[in-house]
């Protein structure tokens, strides 16, 4: 007999939200209530987050993060993960503080090369901004990166792009040692 902790329940809601929005990334039943989760970022915060995700996984000859329409799903996941939830608005505040310090403009209004320069500063922990006193910029960078790459490389389109066939179970990969190189 298994009982859920509050934390586990939130986790399950998270996964439910995932299915809800992505439509079949994971084959799980949809928990009730997941649909009613409202967005929690302001329009400008949302714009900054998506602009950041677009640089983390840009469009090239293949679609990037935004082209796979994963923006709202990422926001939902951040919203329902209690450990993450308060960090994102704070980090996005810091992102714009750093952008203004470096280029006198908000992050969304900058050229891709300038945005990359800011992200490198966040990543290296050298970015300036009040917010980074409470939340190290490298930790915020890594957090957003984790959500971005986790969602992107779980998406069926991205999996096709990289020739990953998906789950091995229930049969596994009995041919795991048959490389046939010489």
């Amino acid at each position, binding site marked *: 007999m298994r009982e859920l902790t509050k934390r*586990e329940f939130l986790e399950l809601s998270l996964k439910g939200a995932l299915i809800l929005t992505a439509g079949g990334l*994971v084959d*799980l039943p949809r928990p009730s209530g997941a649909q009613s989760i409202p967005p929690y970022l302001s329009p400008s915060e949302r714009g900054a987050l998506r602009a950041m995700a677009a640089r983390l996984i840009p469009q090239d000859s293949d679609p990037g993060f935004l082209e796979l329409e994963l923006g709202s799903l990422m926001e939902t996941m951040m919203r329902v993960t209690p*450990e993450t939830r308060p960090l994102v608005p704070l980090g996005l505040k810091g992102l714009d503080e750093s952008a203004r310090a470096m280029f006198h403009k908000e992050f969304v209004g900058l050229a891709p090369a300038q945005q990359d320069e800011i992200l490198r500063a966040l990543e290296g922990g050298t970015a300036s901004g009040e917010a980074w006193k409470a939340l*190290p910029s490298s930790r915020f960078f890594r957090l957003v990166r984790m959500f971005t790459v986790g969602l992107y490389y779980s998406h069926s389109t991205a999996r096709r792009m*990289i020739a*990953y066939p998906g789950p*091995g179970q229930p049969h596994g990969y009995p041919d795991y*040692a048959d490389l046939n190189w010489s």
Partner: protein
Amino acid sequence: MAEKVYDVLIVGTGAAGGVLAKQLAEGGLSVLILEGGGRLDPKTDFRNDELFMGKLHGWPWPIEGPWAPITSYGLGGSMLHYAGWSVRFHPSDFRTRSRDGVGDDWPMEWKDLEPYYQKVEEMIGVAGANDNPFEPPKEPYPLPAHKLNRNAQVVRLGAQKLGLKLLTAPLAINSMPYDGRPPCSYCGFCTNGCMTGAKGESLVSYIPKALDKGAELRLQAFVTRVNLDNDGKASGVSYIDQRTGQEAEARAKAVVLAANGIQNPRLLLHSTSNRFPQGLANSSGLVGKYLTIHLNPGAWGTFERPIQFYKGTQVGAMIQDFYETDPKRGFARGYILVAAGFGPVGMATISGLWGEELKGLMRHYDHVAGFWSMGEDLPQEGNGVTLDPQQKDEFGVPFPRITYRHSENDLAMRRHFHQKAREILEAAGARKVYVDKSQQVAIHFIGTTRMGKDPKSSVVNSFGQAHEVKNLFLAGSSIFVTSAPAPPTLTIQALSARTADYILSEGKKGNLG
């Protein structure tokens, strides 16, 4: 009704708590096991989906600083996400101060641990090849080695050209049926929850056996402090029953904390009293200090022909040529290169890359082979775990605060790894090599209640027994003195089996309580 007084109470159910629960219950003691998390059922709660299994790679409490610790919270602990990689430490690892002038010596010899390595390899079912010339000879492993996975076969080409020895990685993963568990199906999800039970781990190898012998288990019991009696001995613990939100107490003649290298010191620091104003068993002031977390750089090459390194056991083979100190390299101690495969999310995440570089690597995902690593970071007094002076969790326990900075020695080792891994991959025919960017992810928590002979410079003795509280034991990597260039799991189990024997013999003599 008076609360039952158990012989031993164990906090935590991972590699340390699992071994102790099994050994002590089998030794005839009455054992109570407290686990803060819930129970995950591999058949229904695990899936071959990396995003879904992210729950095994998190940290459920807020944390300060740039470091993101990774743990699995629930029955079975972080063995739920270990790769099964079960390698012994070397004799030199116990003597880094004497041999290399860094770190500190352990208060024991490798020989003290050897019989326990042997014992836990049999308990957990390690498959290996006995092909490692860098460690003392040993009995054959209980299970035959797995065939080399694809990644290992590719990097072997490069290792051979450079005169390096590619060694079979000993794995606690069934190569044939063992201990009532099936052989591996090679789905490649070792670190994301083994669905079949082929991977030996606390959840399937220790906890059920402990319960069979009468140990009692309370889940969702989050321990908040260790309690003392009037004589200064541990009398038990207070915990929150998360199902009801109520505080409860459990009592025992001996208490074992096996809650990992962050929670162990956090609990001691929070358990203050008149007798121990700095935290329980902390007159030395060393509880929480000397945290080490390992170095884990990676490097990956793209090859002309498909490899599909997501197939098979994730860890395949390893190179130990750079394990010991070589003064010519410009840094002390060393590292293991390990040929390890990852699912796409794991690959993208641990690479630390982003933007066009990440997409460039991932575009060739099924043509990638490469290395991950386990490097010894040096213990420094300023690195550690303290209690947050302001913020408390929902149970009233201050958040842990991690302070950590790599030493120059660590960074030199990292550069050396990147260079060597690149040479090997290029010799194997890689067209392009990518090296990781610093992740600041702490995968192991080591040394925060370190052992030693002198109570002034250590918290516990070599049996994990607190110098100042004879019936209080610390178990797990928190008692390591140095991190060693190897994964901690097997050594945690060996030390815990040794602690269990000690508790059984001291208990018989009436020395515990």
